[in-house]
């Protein structure tokens, strides 16, 4: 078993408005997998699928090699989950919620829990209903990490949190990962945040997985090229063209956004009589945007 999470051809439809279309993704064991996508792209729905909370219309899902939902009980004993919206009981105090949660997990680490509670600055006597968003976010991380999970599933864990809290949360996660070599599946639309910690990235858009590749390839492989003299039709291209358009007022100069670029690929343009004037690195966010743009259907009278 090499993959902590594996989805194959998973599809699901809700009315006419939203659907998952044949999603196939693989999360390697021990990786930190960043799950990117704009709001409404299907990230949370995909997470609920492999968490056993929703049933796909077709396709197969497995976690740690065990089929979902048949072995869900065994799977969830190894999964720490932080949902998009807090799922804790507002009328409880922090201490009560921790005690309740602990009773369901055999591997609960009380010492680690207390340590985290101090580190994250949580008060056991505080009522959850009166906690701020940041404090609630910290509590959810605390609950997930104290279980000593093999897989951490974090659905937009830092959404709406201030930078200080965000840093605390992510550092707690990273510390745990470095100690336990756990797998982390973290979804977010905050690209720059994932850039620092993830080693794999999957990109969702409109219910489809439009890209899944190592973070290094994602960061380094998407480039903006300024090309002059390029032919109308490009064939046998060694890289993936995400988009190309003529620069305004610059004659034959075009801007190409490409993926999987490597330096020797310049020679392709020599072969077609074109010249690469510039190769510009894109940061993750720019690359993400271009990737999404390329995956969406172009307007009929597009630029």
């Amino acid at each position, binding site marked *: 078993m090499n993959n902590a999470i594996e989805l194959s051809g998973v599809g699901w439809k809700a009315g006419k408005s939203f659907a998952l279309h044949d999603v196939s993704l693989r999360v390697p064991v021990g990786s930190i997998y960043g799950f990117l996508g704009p709001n409404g792209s299907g990230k949370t729905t995909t997470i609920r699928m492999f968490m056993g*909370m929703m*049933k796909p219309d077709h396709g197969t899902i497995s976690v740690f090699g065990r089929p979902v939902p048949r072995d869900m009980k065994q799977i969830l004993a190894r999964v720490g989950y932080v949902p998009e919206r807090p799922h804790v009981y507002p009328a409880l105090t922090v201490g009560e919620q921790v005690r309740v949660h602990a009773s369901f997990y055999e591997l609960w680490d009380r010492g680690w829990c207390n340590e985290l509670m101090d580190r994250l600055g949580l008060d056991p006597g505080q009522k959850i209903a009166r906690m701020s968003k940041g404090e609630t976010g910290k509590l959810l991380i605390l609950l997930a990490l104290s279980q000593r999970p093999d897989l951490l599933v974090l659905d937009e864990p830092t959404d709406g949190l201030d930078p200080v809290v965000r840093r605390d949360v992510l550092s707690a996660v990273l510390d745990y990962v470095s100690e336990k070599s756990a797998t982390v599946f973290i979804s977010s639309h905050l690209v720059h945040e994932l850039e620092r910690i993830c080693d794999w990235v999957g990109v969702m858009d409109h219910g489809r997985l439009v890209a899944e590749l190592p973070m290094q390839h994602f960061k380094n492989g998407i480039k903006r090229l300024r090309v002059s003299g390029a032919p109308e039709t490009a064939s046998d291209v060694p890289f993936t063209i995400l988009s190309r358009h003529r620069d305004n007022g610059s004659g034959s100069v075009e801007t190409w956004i490409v993926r999987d670029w490597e330096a020797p690929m310049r020679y392709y343009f020599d072969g077609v009589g074109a010249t690469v004037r510039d190769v510009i690195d894109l940061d993750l966010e720019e690359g993400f945007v271009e990737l999404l743009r390329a995956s969406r259907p172009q307007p009929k009278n597009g630029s």
Partner: protein
Amino acid sequence: MCRRSALGLVAVTVALFGAAGVEARQAPSGGAATPQASSVGASTMTPEQARLLEKLDSLRPLVAEAQVALDVRIARDLEATRRAAAAAARVDTLGVGLLTVVTPTGQADIARALITEVWNEHFALIERSPTLAESIFVFEWSDARVPIHVESNARPVQFRGSTQRPRVKSAIRNAIGAALAHDLRRAGTQVGLWVSGNPLQEPNLEAIYRVVATRRSQVTRACLAGDVSACASALSLGTRRQDLAQLSEWYTPEERRALVVAWRPELMSRFDRPERTRCVEGRDHAVCDEFLTSFGSMRRDWSPLPPSVRETLLAYAVERGGPGAWERLLEDPDMEPGQALEHASGSTLPELLAGWRARLVEHRPETFEDLAPSTGLSLVWTILFAALAMRSTRWRFG
């Protein structure tokens, strides 16, 4: 106003009009003579004529009223006759046992079937009843009400169509029983005075047991314990006197004091407050006894058991006596209740009372008799509901 009087009044009025008619017709304004018109013609009238005319004028409102009343009366009689005719055309008259039953045409079969069932079950042994002979039972069991007109001695058994069958049968039984109870009263029998209400209605022996078991009287306790002579005393079969001796037989001194305490306080107002206190606080039973016996003139019945209990004994005696028992009960109106019951049942009073007591004890309510089965059933349903709750799958969204 009756028709004849109205017609008579009209005739008199017409005559009066006729008498004054000539002058009235000659009045310049026309119509009936008016005082002014009368005064125009009055100059030619004699004083006697003028007086008559004035009298006639005063009678006009009365005439009009009479005419209206007559019209209303005629219309009402016509309507009643029409309805009676309509009803007569849509009802059947049946004979069941000793009963005469009137029922809407479409109900004849069900009426006959139900009433026959009830009669055979409870009253088949009764061969003669003056009240039944002159009563008409109106039976109707549907939502389509037919106006049935019978004379005043009609005994209705009428229900909406949605009423359940057992309830209808029970009502039939009670209606027949009520008619038969009238036999006792019309004959002026002593036994009729001894009971009241409807002795042959459907008995609720569990409720009767409760009454007997909860009476605060030494004779009722002895009766339940098996002493049939105590039953006779408790049921007031031996005597109708209510002197201190009788009260002492029925109640202990403490129980007699309890009767006084339970009695309406305002009737004790004739006694001094210290005396009342002495009785109520239990220091002087003699004062309580004086209260009780002084109320004799108010005809308060201190009997331990109410007429509703006595009715069950009468019903039992009739049942035990078989064919002719009811007729034997009515034979001698002056017979004391105990003797009448013996004569009707064909048994001695002790035998009768023993049988009655045994039947009563059989009907002792078992308050929580259903507890074990209903609790078990609740457990079964709880498990079923639990299974339904657990049946729902993990899939919660979508």
